[in-house]
């Protein structure tokens, strides 16, 4: 019997736990369709960035207004175009087209800056037909006067307000940098989130040694990054009543399987598909099926969370003890660096 890969995420029934996360592949209709052909359960569109929209509107405005009505021979410098979009229309149009073209659920993603912006764009995404909404809570808080309590409270309030504003399922994608992440997760759940996406990866600056300039940088994830979501999904599974999505570091079926075993409802994949093409998705599904068939698992539902902290034989392994074991088992050698397939992860 072919194992049943269906899973439930945010209350949506998905044909597979392999979900395409936001990437250039989901910003393009053709590649979205190709991803669907390769068996994904759902697709998350790239984030609609309120800050970018605002920035662009101001930029365009300033360029068009620059030096107008100041010189006798030329009062303007550009033709007034009848209609142009510096707002969310292009994004919403892409969402509408994706919905029309795909059978799988389409999840919109949103990164706001102002309370009004979050709500406005959330409603627009819902109206455009999104099956669910992922709130991409992404901010680098640099103000020394703003405390962690303030930041958390703001995030919780935001989730509550969006929850009230829309009726489609709501996922919240957060970063890992919370002192008490479990508590934060519980609060997000209480505020109305239907799911948590773990974890956001931040654009990280780099230094160009040639030009001595700072360059924003987002490297594709590496298999090693899997550990962080793996731990927290395992810990949260059963402790919060929300769907859990693992994102980051899923490069092969083994990683996907580990995350499911730890308790993820879905695993989200971007880097691997970008690096190796949309057919990776099919490979992941095939890998899962083969392993499940060999081990006689009937369904994903059956294995989901079977190695969560609550269900695993050694719960402490997800806590501090893990560190100790890693140290004692660490045996450096030229070949024996940490690899993606090694079961004995090394935390450094």
């Amino acid at each position: 019997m072919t194992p049943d890969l269906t899973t439930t995420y945010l209350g949506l029934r998905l044909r597979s736990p392999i979900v395409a996360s936001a990437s250039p592949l989901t910003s393009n209709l053709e590649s979205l369709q190709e991803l669907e052909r390769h068996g994904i359960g759902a697709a998350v569109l790239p984030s609609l960035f309120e800050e970018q929209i605002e920035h662009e509107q101001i930029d365009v405005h300033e360029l068009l207004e620059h030096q107008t009505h100041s010189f006798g021979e030329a009062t303007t410098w550009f033709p007034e175009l009848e209609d142009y979009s510096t707002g969310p229309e292009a994004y919403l149009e892409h969402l509408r087209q994706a919905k029309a073209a795909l059978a799988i659920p389409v999840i919109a993603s949103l990164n706001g800056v102002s309370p009004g912006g979050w709500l406005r764009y959330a409603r627009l995404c819902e109206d455009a037909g999104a099956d669910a909404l992922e709130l991409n809570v992404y901010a680098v808080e640099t103000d020394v006067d703003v405390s962690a309590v303030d930041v958390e409270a703001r995030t919780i309030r935001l989730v509550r307000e969006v929850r009230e504003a829309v009726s489609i399922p709501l996922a919240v994608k957060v970063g890992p940098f919370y002192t008490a992440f479990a508590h934060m997760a519980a609060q997000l759940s209480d505020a109305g989130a239907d799911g948590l996406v773990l974890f956001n990866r931040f654009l990280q600056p780099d230094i160009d040694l040639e030009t001595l300039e700072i360059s924003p940088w987002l490297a594709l994830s590496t298999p090693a990054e899997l550990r962080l979501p793996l731990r927290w999904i395992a810990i949260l599974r059963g402790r919060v009543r929300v769907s859990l999505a693992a994102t980051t570091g899923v490069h092969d079926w083994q990683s996907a399987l580990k995350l499911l075993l730890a308790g993820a409802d879905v695993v989200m994949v971007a880097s691997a598909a970008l690096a190796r093409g949309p057919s990776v998705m099919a490979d992941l599904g095939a890998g899962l099926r083969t392993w499940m068939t060999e081990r006689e698992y009937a369904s994903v539902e059956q294995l989901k969370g079977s190695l969560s902290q609550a269900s695993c034989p050694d719960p402490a392994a997800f806590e501090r003890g893990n560190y100790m074991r890693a140290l004692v088992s660490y045996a450096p050698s030229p070949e024996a660096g940490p690899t993606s397939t090694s079961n004995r992860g090394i935390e450094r």
Partner: protein
Amino acid sequence: MGMGGRATIDGNEAVAWVAYRASEVIAIYPITPATSMGELADTWSSQGVPNNWGAVPQVIEMQSEGGAAGAVHGALQAGALATTFTSSQGLLLMLPNMFKIAGELTSAVIHVAARSVATHALSIFGDHSDVMAARSTGFALLCSSSVQEAQDLALVAHAATLRTRIPFLHFFDGFRTSHELNTIERLGEDDVRALLDDDLVAAHRARALTPDHPVLRGTAQNPDIFFQAREAANPFYAVIPAVVQEEMTRLAERTGRPYRLFDYVGHPEAERVLILMGSGAGAAEEAVERLCENGERVGLVKVRLFRPFDADAFIATLPAAVSHIAVLDRTKEPAAQGEPLFQDVVTALAETSSEMPRVIGGRYGLSSKEFTPAMAAAAIAELERPDPKRRFTVGITDDVTHLSLKVDTSFTTEPKDVVRAVFYGLGADGTVGANRNSIKILADSAGLFGQGYFVLDSKKAGSMTVSHLRFGPQPITSTYLVQNADFVACHQFGFLDRVDILERAAEGATLLLNAPYGPDDVWDHLPAEAQREIIAKHLRLFVVDATSIALEAGLGKRVNTVLQTCFFALADVVPLEQAIDAIKNAIRSTYSKRGEAVLERNFAAVDRALEGLAEVTVPAKASSARERRALVPAHAPAFVREVTEQMIAGAGDALPVSALPIDGTFPTDTAKYEKRSIGLEIPIWDPSICIDCAKCALVCPHAAIRMKVFPPEALAGAPEDFLSKEWKARDLPGMLMTIQVAPEDCTGCGICVEICPAHSKEEVRHKSINLEPKTDHLEVERERYEFFLEIPEIDRALVAPGTVKGSQMLQPLFEYSGACEGCGETPYLKVLTQLFGDRLLIANATGCSSIYGGNLPTTPWSQNPDGRGPAWSNSLFEDNAEFGLGMRLANDQQAAAARILVSEVAPDLAPEILEADQTTESGIAAQRVRVATLESRCRDLDTPEARRLLSLAGGLVRKTVWIVGGDGWAYDIGFGGLDHVLASGRDVNLLVLDTEVYSNTGGQASKATPRAAVAKFAAGGKRTRKKDLGMIASAYGDVYVAQIAMGADNPQTVKALAEADAYTGPSLVIAYSHCIAHGIEMKKGMEQQKLAVDTGYWPLYRYDPRHSHAGEHPFRLDSRAPKLPVSDFMSREARFAMLARARPADAAELAKLAQYDVDERWHVYEQMAEIEHEAETATEEES
């Protein structure tokens, strides 16, 4: 689009709408002040707006007005209803076709925003000299004197031409009518339909050329019949006045607005009558009304149909009692008995009246010279004198031929129920845009009639704008600047030190200042003159820190929204709450397309504006010790102090005739006296990390950051903290160098800082030059700069001029121009003057470069300490290559004549002079010495031959001719001439400052515009490729061709210019020039140039015929194969990026083609680089 009802629009829009509805083919070409008519037609066409018959007119941009007229002629001949819009030189280029169109009895209308024809100088402003040059074409000439009339009579013209078969030239005054915003009653589509008779349209079409019933038109005729055939058209002219009157009457029946061929206003038994046409009628009518109220028997005849001049209708219009007539012409016809309207009036009276009234003729309003009711009254008053001037001028002081009339400036007629406001703003602060909105708000929400006229600067950066607004319960017909303003706003505090902004304030007026001070301390910061005027005129003074409020609201420098709100609060024309709602609605309708963020920031500015508004208690006495500073220094030449300073101060109207050059010849080297001090931040040099690269000086568009290399002893007497450092290059051991900013000439554009490659090791963002607030550095840098200028210029023989560093050691002779901040053109011109400025003749095509180069009061073309420098002239737009070639021919001819005479007059000096090597700086310097000796010898000899040689000897020193212009000239209107000059083999150099659009008129597409760019006349993105001018030129084989981009490869730029000059045949250098019409942050201009080259958008190359020999490759690619997709370049410029937001599918398709263009061109160029080309090098043709 107009659907009837009331609207506040300008004359151009009013006319363009009618012309668009009434036309099928519209051929256009940009020219100030007619440009916006073509722009609107093009926009409507691209939006699919239909004409009267439900079809969308075809609008096509041509390569010149001559081309537009040709296309119109062809369209008419093939049966379309065709029109065009133009002005000035544009109309002159249409004349040949106009004779044909009229001679063929073809229904057509040309709408003209009347503008001065260039004579001793170009002027973009209004008068009738262009229209008068078209009198003999056979077109009927119909004149409108207001925005309302311009709309109405435009339709009369279209209707009458269909009925009469005679083409009409419909004209109205440039700027005063074309650009004046006025609340008018709009015509509706049904009005247009009613007046354009479909049967007549069908008749027009039936006369068209078609192979279905072929005819021959455009024959060549001989003495036997030409004359008779010409007379055959007479009956068609005879009926025109009656037809025009009938169409006017039909229009009046529909609209209630009556017009006559000649309209009379004034006393029914007037004895003294004024006659004029155009916008001056508004001012004249007010004068006549006031004089009649005072009991005088005076009147005014407004001429509408000038040609054919209907003498009977004219005589019938005159009151029977008239005994004295003054005719005012807005044109000058030197050497004529009188100006054209005067002559027609005299002829009509002489032929039809038994008792000839006394008629005098005067000129007024040339080049938009103000024409006020007081001036009209002066003309009427002249008629009362026992011996009035037969010919006169009014509005100026003529102290040479004493033709001018005295004007009683206390005579004013401003209506009592009209609110008048004047606003002084900076180009960048949005004042004019806000005022345009305010007029519409008051017209729409308060039911008032409004008028707005905007006096804009001729400087592109840091320009001052003055907005003149009127509001009232009746239509506003005051066609002159506001004189007694109830409200004066100064949007830039610094203006108080430069101009007398209170001059126009009425007694008891309200004054609003945008100041960085509060109500308690602003008074102490006012100059004494302003304090005295505020007290004397009992002004109410209000202050607001709009700059801070705008900044906090995220609006940058645009203080307009804040100050507009304050205006409504103070002007009290409508209740404040209603006004605020109306302002917000206006913001929404103006900016809704721009997005929520833009709306929210403007709304925030409105909401916060009034919090900062406060009234200032005006003290009883002026207390300021600070008077306005003199605008030019005391050491300036007399002409600059006596004439130029007046112009800088905005007081040029007061200059008498005697103050001005008789032939348009002005001194160069004057921009340095106009310290505009517009930069808020200026670059400050840190010598400790400078690497002597000279790039900052090279790229500075304003020559405001400079480099000098000098021996240590030159520092004797330097200010204590004058900065210098060791010059590290080995070419000049022991020398020092300084990079110095000209603090009051810098615009703060930041291009120099962007290009500076030297970073501090400790703090990377700190460069060798950094923008810092000017106020912190002004005094010190001013003193340093003064000393810097005193440091002797380096001996030109010591430097390698064909290098970046070498060129920047040399004195720039193009400085402090009024070009845009960060201009991409001016750095090329500046380096040209560094390389060859002391022997440079420049022919400059009309366009940006002729404006920032030659628009008074001052010029950036300057002189070296020996008094040598570029000699510059602008002839026209279309003829520049030929104009420059003429300069070359004259120089060559003089040199040839001198060479013959040298042997006769000074045989001992002849060999050295005639054999001199002038290919190097030292060779030229040596020749100058020899020629000086020769000239001295000639003076001593004083024989006829010696005297002749003396006048020619200068030609023995090599002169270099550069023919400079933009892409509009080189690719379009001047291409025929450019091509001919390239083919001439002569030693001329052509520099094309390629901004890829018509920059000066506001960014219309040229044939240099690249595919996929949005430009005016290509609103949907240009669909065709950019013309490859360089390849066309290189096909000649003997033309040196280079394509350069300073920001990408500055050594190649300098090298190409030097090579072009050295090459003794024709050279063409095409220089990529970033431009505000590209929609970029201007300080990033050089970065964009680099990206243009790195993506293959703008390949760099040099084609040097001197390498056209077997085994050599004349074509050399100087840039590397594209390493980035062209989208990386395009996505950073609004001209491309806009399209992706407006028409994503089109944009994607065009972007693909743009990449194809790049790939394809690179492919071809690579093959070019491989070819061996045996071509003859330039040999000058014997003539």
